[in-house]
Structures are given as C-alpha cells and as structure tokens.
C-alpha cells in the first residue's frame, strides 16, 4: 500500500506506474496548445499604424522621462497636459532627427537629472545599478559555501549510506503524501 501511494502522488522515490500511457508527441501537443493561447496576445504587435516607427520611438523616449507634475509617472503614461505637450515636443524633436541621447540631454539641461526615470549609468549612480547584481553574486557564493559545508558535514558524519538515515528519508518522503497540517 505504501509504495503504491508513493507511486501515484508524484514522489521522487521510484514511480513505476508513471512510465506508460503517454504518447511521444505529448510535449509537442502541449507546446502547441500553449502557443495557441499566447498568439492572440502577440498578434496585434504585428499590425501597425501609419507611422509605427515614430510613435514607438516617441513612446520609448517619453517613458524614460519623468512627468514633472505627477511625481511618479512617466511622460508617456501621464494623462496631464504638460506631459502631453512634452510628448508632442519629443515627437517634434524625433522628427527633426534628434537622437534619444540628445533629447534626454535637452530635458536634463532644463529640469535637471531628476527628469530621468532611470539614473544614467555613471559615477555614483553605478552603485544603484551594480549593487543588486553584486549582492546576488555574493549571496550565490554564500549559498554555495553553505551547501558545500553541509554536504561535507554529511560525508564526514556518515561516510557510507547509513541505513537508519535512508530509512528516515524514506519515512519522510512518505509523510509528505499523508495529509499535512497534523
């Protein structure tokens, strides 16, 4: 009974019953169903408007500028009048052939660095860009050290597979299948 239970509830401990019953094309069918669901969402991106390049460029630049009257929205998103005028100005500047950097520089010269929603990656600001990844890397190294220490402790303590421990693992695995919360 116990081993049967282990088999149906998806336990990693040996599940002979799960091999049969699935065709080889299952993965493909699954992928197709999934894609079928996603396509309606992806499709409209393909169809465009009269001047898609310009509008997308404007939106891209405007979404990096802070709407100065609304504290926390970009010029692209803000419904305020000033933001609308700024979008128009960006559109005009793009039409004049100004690059993204030039347009940003113009707004910074008028409103200060505050107007950029993402701090330029230089000087002191490198901290805000670099620290998260540095922290993750350090953390990953820490996790590795801890995990390695644990596996070493384990090997020192029980060089061979201890039958008692194996039994405990087996028991715990079974426990997992029983109703929890007790």
């Amino acid at each position: 009974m116990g081993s049967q239970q282990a088999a149906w509830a998806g336990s990693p401990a040996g599940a002979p019953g799960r091999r049969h019953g699935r065709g080889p094309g299952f993965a493909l069918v699954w992928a197709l169903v999934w894609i079928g669901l996603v396509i309606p969402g992806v499709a409209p991106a393909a169809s465009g408007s009269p001047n898609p390049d310009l509008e997308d460029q404007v939106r891209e630049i405007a979404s990096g500028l802070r709407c100065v009257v609304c504290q926390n929205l970009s010029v692209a998103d803000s419904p305020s009048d000033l933001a609308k005028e700024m979008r128009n100005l960006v559109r005009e500047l793009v039409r004049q052939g100004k690059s993204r950097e030039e347009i940003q520089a113009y707004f910074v010269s008028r409103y200060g660095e505050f107007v950029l929603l993402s701090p330029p990656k230089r000087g002191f600001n490198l901290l805000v860009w670099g620290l998260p990844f540095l922290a993750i890397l350090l953390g990953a190294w820490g996790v590795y050290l801890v995990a390695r220490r644990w596996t070493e402790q384990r090997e020192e303590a029980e060089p061979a597979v201890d039958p008692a421990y194996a039994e405990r693992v087996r028991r715990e695995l079974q426990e997992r299948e029983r109703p929890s919360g007790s």
Partner: protein
Amino acid sequence: MAGPESLMSWKKALIPLACVPVIILLAYGFRTDPKAIPSPLVRQPAPGFRMAVYDAGELSLETLKGKPAVLNFWASWCYPACYEEAPLLESTWRKYKDQGLMLVGVDIQDKEANAREFMRRFDFTFPNGPDPGSKISIDYGVYGVPETFFIDRQGRITYKHVGALTPALMEAQVQAILKGN
C-alpha cells in the same frame, strides 16, 4: 580566555548595528524636501523664446537684451496662487518700468477668453502672451504655475521662485537685478 569571548560578542553586536546606517539615512530624509528641486538654469543664460503678446505684436528674448527682466509663468486656472500674486506683479511693473525693468507674463495651458478675463480683472498693463504647446514653459523647466524667473542685464537667470511671490522677495530680487551690471 576573555579575548575570544569578547570578540564573539563584538561580532554578535554587528548584527543589530548593521541597521544603523539605514536609520541614519532615513533620519536624514526628514531634512530634505522632496518637492524642492533646484533648477539647472539658475546662473545660466536664459533660454531664448519668441512669444505673440496679447494685442501687442511679438516679443522675444532679444527684445529684453540689456534690460533686467522678470519672467512670470501663470494661468487663469491656477487658483489661488496666481490670483494672490497678480496684484503684486502689476504694482511692481508700475513701480519699476521707468527704471528699465521688463516684466513679461507667460500664460500657459490656458483658454484665451479665460486669460483675457484674468488680465482684465487684475488690470495687467505689462506684456502677456500665450505659450502654445508649452514650448517656452518646457524650455524654462517649468513644473507648474506660478513660477518666476529673474533675469539680469546680461541675460542670465539669477533666481527662480516656485509658488506665489511675496512682496519682500519680489522687492529683493528686483533690486538685485536692477543693481547688477
């Protein structure tokens, strides 16, 4: 024996002490005003502009050359701040226009009829004009109304004020640009 043990407790104390810098930073936050954003234009040459004045042709930065100038951004929908400072603008203009002071009003994001009503109400005699597309406003890094720029004879912005002007501040800044050479 005491050595390693005290070292241990010293290390332990590091855990709670790690929070101190964060708390200090947050406490520093009380001293800052998130709404006060310094303008990069102060002490810079005033950006050029060209504006169609209500009923009086055109006006541009060149017109102001060599004269100390006060550039005020306002709107008729800006209540109460613009309504509070409007009489002060007009009286300053009357008091100093003979000493060569220029006072220019830029009316932003407004309907012409409302703007004219506003000017009539406060009996404006200095030149005012609309700012279609908010071009001038954006060029001056304006956040909202009212904002006022003081420009010296060299065409340099000496001071920017956000919000309604007070008589004392107006007097001091006007004197400064009048005296400056």
